[in-house]
C-alpha cells in the first residue's frame, strides 16, 4: 500500500498540541505552578512551530497567553526562595490576582478558538523550515554580538535569552541535539529570574528585612552573568553549524 509522502522535516505537532490542551484544562480547574510552567513551554514550542511554517496568525494569541502565565510563573519562582514573612504574604496576594487573570484568560472563548485554529494548520514545509532556522540563527548571533555594548548589557542578555530559547525549540522540532543551547538557556533563564526578583526587591528598598536578600541576589546575578557569558563564548562559533 502506498504511504503518504511526508513533506515536513519536523516531528509531529500532535504531542505538543495535546500537551497544550491538557495544561489549559488543568489550569482551568486550578492554577498549579507545574501546569503554569508546562503551559508556557507548550505555548512557546507551538509558537516556534508556527514560525517555522512562516505563519503569523495565532502567534500573538499564544504570546498573550504566555505573558499572562509568565506573571504567575515569576511569582511561583520567587515563592521557591526562602523569603521574609511580610513580603511572602504580599507575593501570595499578588499571585492570587495574577492567577485569577490567567484563569479568566483560559476560560475565554478565545482560547477555544486558538485550539481550533492550531489543529487546522498544516505541517511546515522544508523550504520554510530551512529559511526560518537560518533567520533564527542570525538573530541569535546578532543578539550575542550586542553583549559587548555596555549600554545594552542586561537588555542584550534578555534578548539573547529569548532568541536562544526559540532556536532551541526549533532544533528540537527537527529532532536535532540542542544540549549546548539548553545549558546556555538555563544560565540565561536563571539570570532572568534573579533580575525579576531584584526589580521587586528594589521596589521595596525601604524594607530593612529584605536588605540581606537584595545583596545576595546582586551577588548571584554577577555569578550567573559570568557563567552565561562563558557559555555563550563557548557556543558562539558553533551556532552556524547547528
Amino acid at each position, binding site marked *: 500500500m502506498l504511504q503518504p509522502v511526508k513533506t515536513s522535516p519536523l516531528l509531529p505537532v500532535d504531542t505538543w498540541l495535546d500537551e497544550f490542551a491538557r495544561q489549559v484544562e488543568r489550569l482551568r480547574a486550578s492554577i498549579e505552578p507545574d501546569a503554569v510552567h508546562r503551559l508556557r513551554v507548550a505555548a512557546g514550542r507551538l509558537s516556534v512551530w508556527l514560525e517555522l511554517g512562516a505563519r*503569523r*496568525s*495565532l502567534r*500573538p*494569541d499564544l504570546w498573550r497567553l504566555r505573558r499572562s502565565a509568565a506573571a504567575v510563573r515569576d511569582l511561583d519562582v520567587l515563592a521557591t526562595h526562602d523569603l521574609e514573612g511580610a513580603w511572602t504574604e504580599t507575593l501570595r496576594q499578588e499571585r492570587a490576582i495574577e492567577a485569577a487573570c490567567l484563569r479568566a484568560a483560559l476560560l475565554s*472563548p478565545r482560547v477555544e478558538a486558538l485550539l481550533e485554529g492550531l489543529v487546522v494548520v498544516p505541517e511546515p514545509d522544508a523550504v520554510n523550515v530551512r529559511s526560518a532556522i537560518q533567520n533564527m540563527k542570525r538573530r541569535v548571533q546578532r543578539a550575542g554580538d550586542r553583549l559587548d555594548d555596555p549600554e545594552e548589557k542586561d537588555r542584550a542578555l534578555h534578548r539573547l535569552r529569548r532568541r536562544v530559547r526559540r532556536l532551541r525549540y526549533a532544533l528540537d522540532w527537527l529532532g536535532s541535539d540542542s544540549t549546548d543551547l539548553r545549558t546556555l538557556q538555563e544560565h540565561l533563564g536563571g539570570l532572568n529570574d534573579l533580575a525579576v526578583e531584584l526589580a521587586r526587591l528594589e521596589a521595596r528598598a525601604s524594607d530593612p528585612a529584605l536588605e540581606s536578600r537584595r545583596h545576595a541576589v546582586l551577588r548571584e546575578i554577577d555569578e550567573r552573568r559570568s557563567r552565561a557569558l562563558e557559555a555563550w563564548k563557548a557556543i558562539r562559533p558553533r551556532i552556524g553549524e547547528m
Partner: protein
Amino acid sequence: MDLWLIRHAIAQVQSPAGDDARRALTPEGRERFARGVRGLTRIGARFDLVLHSPMLRAQETADLLQPVCTGETAVTSALARAPDEQLFADIQGSCVALVGHEPWLSQTLSWLVFGWRVYEEDPSVAIVQMKKGSAAHLVGDPRPGAMHLAALYPPAALRALGRR
C-alpha cells in the same frame, strides 16, 4: 470607529483531509489578495486590531493583511458562525478588521446597518454579497443599527487601487 469586514481570499475547493476548516488559500488567491492589500494601503486603511476566524483560509488571509496591521491580531470563533453579540464584544479599537466567511460577513453587515437580523426573516435578503477577497468599510459604533456602509470594495477594485 472604522470597521472593515474582509472576506477570505480564494481558497482550495477541498482540503486534502476533506475538512472545510483546513482549506488553505490557493497560490492564485494569495497573489491576488496580496495585490488587494496594496489597494488597502493605498486608501490609507490601517488596522489596530485584526480579528480572524480559526479556519485556515481566514488565518492565511489575516497573515496577508500584515502590511496594513499596526496593532494586534487575534483569533475568535465568533467569526466562524452566524453573527451574535460575542462578535461585537470582541471589537475593541478605532480601526478594526474582521476576516471571515460568507454568509456571516454580509449578515453582520446587515445587522450592524439595519439594526435587526433581517436575513433571519428572509435569507434571500442581504444588503451585499461579499466576493472572496472583498472588503466592506463601515463607520459608527459596532452595535446593531449604529453603523453605516461607507464603501464596498470588490477584489478587482482593491487590486486596481493597488496599481495606481
